């Protein structure tokens, strides 16, 4: 499998006035191995701690997996942006807008999720992924747009997470 190239940039070294801001970007193509490609990107970013990598793999995989299975990812795939500040790490995921995502966000606005529940008839759990992402992040937002749908997840830094 080809590893997606991470474009890594230190804003503090590039004239950006925001001190200590590190960024990395990649595009995950529309394909069944998109989740694995996202993971490969996370592993390739050298400014992340092991704790942050694990958080990104679990929470990010969940969103990428759902975008693949519930929505339709446009031909441009998923744009991934990581921003690391001294106090937090933000993961942004951007895809071509899709009505399924808009329906999902409208649902969230109308009826906030109750938490995971088991449907014994279907032998399926519902709401697990939402709960997992909520518990792993300090904040998460889902924004449907006219051209792009966006998911932003923020993780608070801990001692040992590095710059």
């Amino acid at each position, binding site marked *: 499998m080809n590893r997606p190239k991470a474009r890594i940039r230190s804003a503090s070294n590039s004239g950006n006035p925001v001190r200590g801001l590190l960024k990395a970007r990649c595009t995950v193509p529309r394909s069944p191995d998109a989740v694995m490609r996202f993971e490969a990107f996370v592993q390739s970013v050298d400014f992340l701690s092991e704790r942050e990598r694990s958080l990104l793999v679990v929470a990010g995989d969940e969103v990428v997996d759902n975008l693949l*299975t519930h929505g339709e990812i446009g031909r441009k795939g998923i744009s991934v942006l990581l921003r690391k500040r001294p106090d937090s790490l933000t993961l942004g995921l951007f895809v071509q807008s899709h009505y399924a995502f808009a329906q999902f966000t409208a649902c969230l606005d109308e009826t906030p999720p109750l938490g995971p529940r088991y449907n014994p008839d279907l032998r399926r759990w519902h709401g697990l992924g939402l*709960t997992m992402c909520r518990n792993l992040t300090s904040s998460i937002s889902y924004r449907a747009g006219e051209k792009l749908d966006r998911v932003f997840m923020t993780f608070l830094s801990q001692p040992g997470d590095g710059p």
Partner: protein
Amino acid sequence: MTGISIENTERGKYVVLTVNGPINSYTFNELQEKAMKYAGKTDLAIDLAGVSSMTSAGIGVILAAIEDAEAAGKRIFVVSPSEVARLAIESTGFAERFPTVASVKELPA
């Protein structure tokens, strides 16, 4: 390429499913098939030491297997979850629902 492999072996009264690779929407069917084959019919251990990632699809399969095992009065354990598997389980908010042992040697006889 899915990247998942599941090996089943026997250890005492237990069937041990050893999972390697990612568990997500593209790979969970294989785990579901094997877990449903044994959960509730025999004592079952699911070794997650080699799991590289796990989404709610995988968590749901394991929870359903736990439901089946408990309903049938059979034992079920998660064995030695990898760091990401442990984090995925904890992130559900009900990690206590997952009976866990550190290695197959610690499975109750």
